[in-house]
């Protein structure tokens, strides 16, 4: 077994600042209502002299425009759950643990060609999500957590890959990194036991009697002498994420950065499940219960954050927002199996071919679906109904054109009435087209191929119903 533990120091603050660092002093408060305490403070607050453990009243005296957010454990838990789901892309065994997540990666090391590469892939991924995490690698969960916490506390530690060297690697670490009751730690300090080395030298029986069996069990699990089974986190079969913006965003450009973070997180989660999404709903919240809905739909299940972001960017660009945006809410209620797209292998095809589906989706996202279409032949004799628009890029049953008479390459949107000055030479015709008496769009026309003195050739007809006269309907381009 090889575990990677991720520790997210000051998690409540990280969640609050994920969509962008807040320039003003910001603290997270917790504690009794009469006297809430600062549990974490951002850089601006710290440089004003705010420290953890201070009363909020004192902190407010130090920093004039201090923003205080109450700690929300539910939000933290949800963030860790989503992080555990995101970790599913690296291993089947991803679970929440303490203030972070733990991944069992022994089986994935070969896939990522070495634990160092895997660890750096995880670090990079976490950074893209907008989190800051420290990372510990060890044969047991608790030891990995210990290393991650040591790094968070600024201690230099090396990971450990083997149980045989675990004892010497943990020896120098202080005991306060463990989640032990403060009383126990104080008691141990009084005894002169402050480092792991001292603790492990004590006889286990005595430790269990004096400090309780859970302390002995914890040590056993940490050293790998007692099994420490974990349940992998199984995420719900949908993806939901909400992100509050650090400041009210005016316009859509400011939304792209936080949106990217959410999409990266979604991509990791989907990778872990071998899934993709075909429909996404993005809510832009404006406050006071006003919000704007943006639907994203794809031709096939997708998960690449860059691609989804490019589609969202075009759609957002077409939107006019009623007010500034304060939060983003992303929802995908149906996760579908994802089929990886084969990429081009043709030699010389260096340029990244994004494929026809992607091109079509990109175009219709910005221009609107009705402006991007494919064409096909329809079963009708009437020229304006002899073709039909259809979803582009999909093979259609190839119908033989009725190649009896010539048809023009261009069809005018609507026939243009000819004036008497237009002078034509009739080349072919008449071709009587009379049809449609059953659906109220009856036509009775004589079509001719005609050309003018400049050599331009047109498709004109003589109307026998309604407003009679000569019309131009096509161009033999």
């Amino acid at each position, binding site marked *: 077994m090889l575990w990677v533990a991720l520790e997210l120091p000051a998690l409540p603050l990280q969640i609050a600042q994920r969509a962008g660092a807040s320039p003003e002093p910001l603290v997270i408060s917790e504690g009794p209502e009469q006297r809430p305490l600062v549990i974490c403070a951002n850089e601006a607050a710290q440089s004003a002299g705010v420290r953890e453990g201070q009363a909020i009243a004192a902190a407010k005296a130090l920093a004039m425009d201090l923003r205080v957010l109450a700690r929300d454990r539910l939000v933290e838990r949800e963030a860790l759950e989503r992080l555990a789901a995101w970790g599913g892309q690296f291993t089947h065994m991803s679970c929440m643990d303490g203030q972070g997540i733990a991944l069992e990666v022994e089986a994935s090391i070969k896939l990522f060609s070495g634990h160092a590469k895997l660890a750096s892939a995880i670090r990079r991924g976490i950074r893209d999500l907008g989190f800051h995490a420290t990372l510990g690698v060890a044969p047991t969960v608790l030891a990995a957590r210990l290393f991650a916490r040591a790094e968070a506390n600024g201690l230099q530690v090396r990971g450990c890959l083997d149980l045989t060297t675990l004892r010497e690697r943990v020896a120098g670490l202080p005991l306060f990194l463990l989640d032990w009751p403060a009383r126990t730690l104080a008691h141990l300090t009084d005894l002169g036991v402050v480092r792991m080395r001292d603790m492990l030298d004590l006889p286990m029986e005595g430790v269990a009697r004096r400090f309780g069996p859970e302390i002995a069990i914890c040590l056993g699990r940490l050293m790998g002498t007692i099994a420490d089974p974990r349940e992998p986190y199984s995420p719900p079969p949908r993806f939901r994420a909400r992100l509050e913006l650090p400041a009210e965003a005016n316009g859509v450009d400011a939304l792209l950065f936080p949106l990217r973070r959410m999409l990266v997180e979604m991509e990791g989660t989907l990778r872990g499940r071998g899934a993709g999404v075909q429909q996404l709903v993005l809510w832009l919240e404006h406050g006071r219960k006003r919000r704007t809905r943006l639907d994203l739909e794809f031709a096939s299940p997708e998960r690449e954050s860059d691609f989804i972001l490019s589609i969202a960017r075009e759609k957002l660009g077409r939107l006019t927002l009623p007010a500034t945006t304060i939060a983003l809410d992303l929802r995908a209620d149906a996760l579908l199996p994802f089929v990886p797209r084969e990429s081009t292998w043709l030699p010389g095809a260096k340029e990244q071919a994004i494929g026809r589906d992607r091109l079509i989706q*990109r175009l219709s996202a910005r221009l609107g679906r009705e402006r991007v279409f494919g064409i096909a032949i329809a079963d009708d004799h009437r020229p304006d109904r002899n073709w039909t628009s259809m979803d582009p890029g999909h093979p259609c049953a*190839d119908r033989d054109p009725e190649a009896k008479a010539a048809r023009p390459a261009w069809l005018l949107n609507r026939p243009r009435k000819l004036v*008497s000055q237009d002078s034509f030479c009739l080349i072919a015709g008449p071709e009587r087209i009379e049809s449609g008496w059953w659906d109220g769009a009856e036509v009775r026309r004589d079509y001719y191929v005609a050309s003018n003195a400049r050599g331009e*050739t047109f498709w004109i007809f003589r109307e026998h119903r309604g407003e009679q006269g000569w019309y131009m309907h096509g161009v033999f381009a």
Partner: protein
Amino acid sequence: MKATVAQLAQLPGVWRGGELEHAIQPVVATGHAALDRELPGSGWPTGTLTEVLHDAAGIGEISFLAGALARASRDDRLIAWIAPPHLPYAPALAAAGIPLDRCLVVRPANRDDSLWAAEQALRSGACGAVLFWLPSDEYAWLRRLQMAAESGRAMAVLFRSTAAERLSTPAHLRVMLSREHGALEVRIPKRRGPPLATPIRLAIGRTLPAASSITDIRSHALAAVG
């Protein structure tokens, strides 16, 4: 190190004044032997802009490309029609041998969207041919489209009016169409090679019957009624 003239002529973008450029990018045969002979590499270039200049509409400006379009759409690649002046009419295209299921028609609402769509189609690499009708003569945009064309592999054809002949262009090839005496006359004002002395005549479009019946619509209509 000295290079011989023959070696220099092998460099991309270098050709002898009296000969056609040795095209590096693959070309798409035009389907007209007389025209192929006059084009560098014997066909429509890919990965660069080609300009087709014409004023008259309905002289065969699309049908003379039909064979090349059918060839360019091989390997499941798209033929993109960006901002065409009218609707490409499915029965006629099918009759000309253009596969309809490869056709992608894009009719943007405004100028900026048209330029953007053309750029996207050129860059994507998903298109075998991109035909576009540009609402702008801005050199900066042409340059940008040329860059986009270079990054894709499409046969990129830009249709413009002959008034653009005076304007400089980043396109490597420019052909000018007109209809003379029942044939499509192709001139090549710009190519990578010597100027073309005599225009090429292609028998495109229907062979006109003897020009006997130049008819005024009104009198014809009256005759029909009478």
